């Protein structure tokens, strides 16, 4: 009986494994074929031979390199502003104002329900005022982007905070003499580091891929420049698009390594206690 049951279990396990590999393979094909086609296109010369000319030409487009630099700066600024705004607010709401949780959640998720083009209509007068009175730098786009990334980052950080006992950890740290800043920096942040990394990655990915707001507010970020470039030199445009995708992939890998970093190895074996508590290893 036991042998038959084990055999059935093994057959099921094999079927499950096969199913997993098939799904993985289909997903890989779905994502890799277009990527492969882009790589193939960006390395194909007019005569059909392989060339890296399009890739080498990327630095020769000053507008493009400027747009790449601007998008990267926007990604960094947006991520920092988002974290500085969101993490303390969410912790404070959990600790002191739990009744506001629903309202904060609703407000944070609201941008998700508003199409980007509608956001632009709303933001346009504000940006006219900003351009006239403060700055017309493309970096001011980070203000709009913070709103744009809010729903995704809220979800990521909320999941992180939900996984720890924020109230008890905070009170423990406070009773040990920690200031509020120390509580945030030394206790909360290290324990939601994965959530912060996830939120940052989402933020970076969204900013690097954003087109509608930048284009309609007449700023040249990476995506806007790629569209312009595609009309002029499709090969270079595709090469940059592949590079952007690879950059996002590299970020994911970094995240996986940092987030999944194993804890320090310990020398102490789990042996019985010595001394007065030898009988009370609890």
């Amino acid at each position, binding site marked *: 009986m036991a042998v038959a049951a084990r055999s059935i279990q093994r057959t099921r396990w094999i079927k499950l494994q096969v199913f997993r590999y098939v799904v993985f393979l289909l997903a890989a094909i779905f994502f890799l074929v277009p990527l492969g086609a882009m790589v193939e296109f960006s390395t194909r010369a007019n005569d059909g031979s392989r060339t890296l000319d399009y890739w080498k030409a990327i630095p020769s487009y000053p507008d493009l390199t400027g747009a790449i630099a601007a998008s990267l700066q926007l990604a960094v600024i947006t991520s920092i502003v988002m974290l500085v705004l969101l993490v303390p607010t969410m912790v404070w709401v959990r600790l002191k104002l739990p009744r506001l949780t629903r309202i904060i959640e609703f407000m944070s998720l609201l941008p998700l329900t508003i199409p980007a083009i509608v956001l632009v209509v709303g933001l346009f007068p504000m940006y006219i005022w900003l351009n006239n009175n403060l700055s017309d730098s493309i970096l001011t786009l980070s203000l709009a982007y913070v709103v744009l990334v809010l729903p995704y980052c809220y979800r990521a950080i909320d999941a992180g905070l939900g996984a720890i006992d924020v109230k008890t950890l905070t009170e423990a740290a*406070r009773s040990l003499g920690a200031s509020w800043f120390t509580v945030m920096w030394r206790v909360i942040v290290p324990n939601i580091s994965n959530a912060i990394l996830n939120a940052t990655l989402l933020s970076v990915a969204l900013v690097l891929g954003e087109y509608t707001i930048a284009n309609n507010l007449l700023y040249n970020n990476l995506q806007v420049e790629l569209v312009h470039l595609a009309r002029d030199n499709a090969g270079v445009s595709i090469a940059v698009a592949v590079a952007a995708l690879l950059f996002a992939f590299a970020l994911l890998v970094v995240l996986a390594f940092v987030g999944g970093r194993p804890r320090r190895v*310990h020398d102490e074996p789990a042996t019985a206690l010595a001394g007065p508590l030898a009988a009370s290893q609890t």
Partner: protein
Amino acid sequence: MTERSGVEVRLENLVRRYGTVTALDGLSLTLAPGELVALLGPSGCGKTTALRLLAGLEEANDGRVVIGGKDVTGLPANRRNIGMVFQAYSLFPHMVAWENVAFGLQMRHVGVDERKKRALDMLELVGLGRFANRYASQMSGGQQQRVALARALAIQPQVLLLDEPLSALDAKVRSRLRDEIRRVQLEVGITTLFVTHDQEEALAIADRVGVMQAGKLEQLGPPTLVYSRPATPFVADFVGLTNRMEGTVRRGAVEIRGASIPLVHPDVPDGPAIALVRPEAVALASDGDMQEGPLVGTVIAVAFLGAVSRVTVDLGDTTVLVQVPTSAASQHPAGTRVRLELRPDPVLIQREEAVPAAS
């Protein structure tokens, strides 16, 4: 006897309201230096609120908190120099045990070497020296609470607060750790407030027990006094088991089914009353008439509790709990007729409608 070196702690007329609910209603309590006081009471009685006000984790609507002669009512939690062990596991998950214990020392700008040494010393004190490099996730609940105790003591606080630190542990571990907390507390000599809803815990380790109800202190005294001379019917009911038996007060004693029992407070007017009788103040008679009489009944259940057993006897119009040595209980299985004897231990009375069942 260990010399005590703690400070006096005074809670003066503390009031705490949450909207329309008054959680603490003018609580006043003084802890002598080095004393361990346990606050005991049902959920929502205000005991944890009192502890949190003392810790500075909440603000009082009225009243004062005085530690070592200094008014700390307005001080935030991080400036009160109070060590606290929480009900929930509160070790910082990203730090190993010694780092957790050293955290408070770091907040006090103690150098790295010194704080590591002191953290390891504290871990030795609670018997976890070998676990210094373990994360919370690599320790059992009992070990985590002992590290939390070491962490609370490492900062050499003026007061130690224990907020039901054993409630998440299983019975055996709880009992051991309870004794361990008392040993360490006596060794360090720190003034300690211990909040619990477990009367056994409170009675076992406290110098004095405070029983709370509805935001007020019903009684404060040594465990033996609180148990044997409860000040109010609520205390009698809450601390230990109590039989509620109908009787008549007459000249400072209460007559219950023919037996006369002295009263804790003899100066009460004569008349019908409910007497609160402890199960251990009732015995099973070994001789006499087992068929007729006001205290003759039938055993309906016997609960084995180890050295003692709890026998439930049906007297017809009420049931009575009797706590006797297991050897005596074994002679009276369910269904046998028994005659009860009431020991002349002073009892409290309650002026209210008769409640037939034992509580």
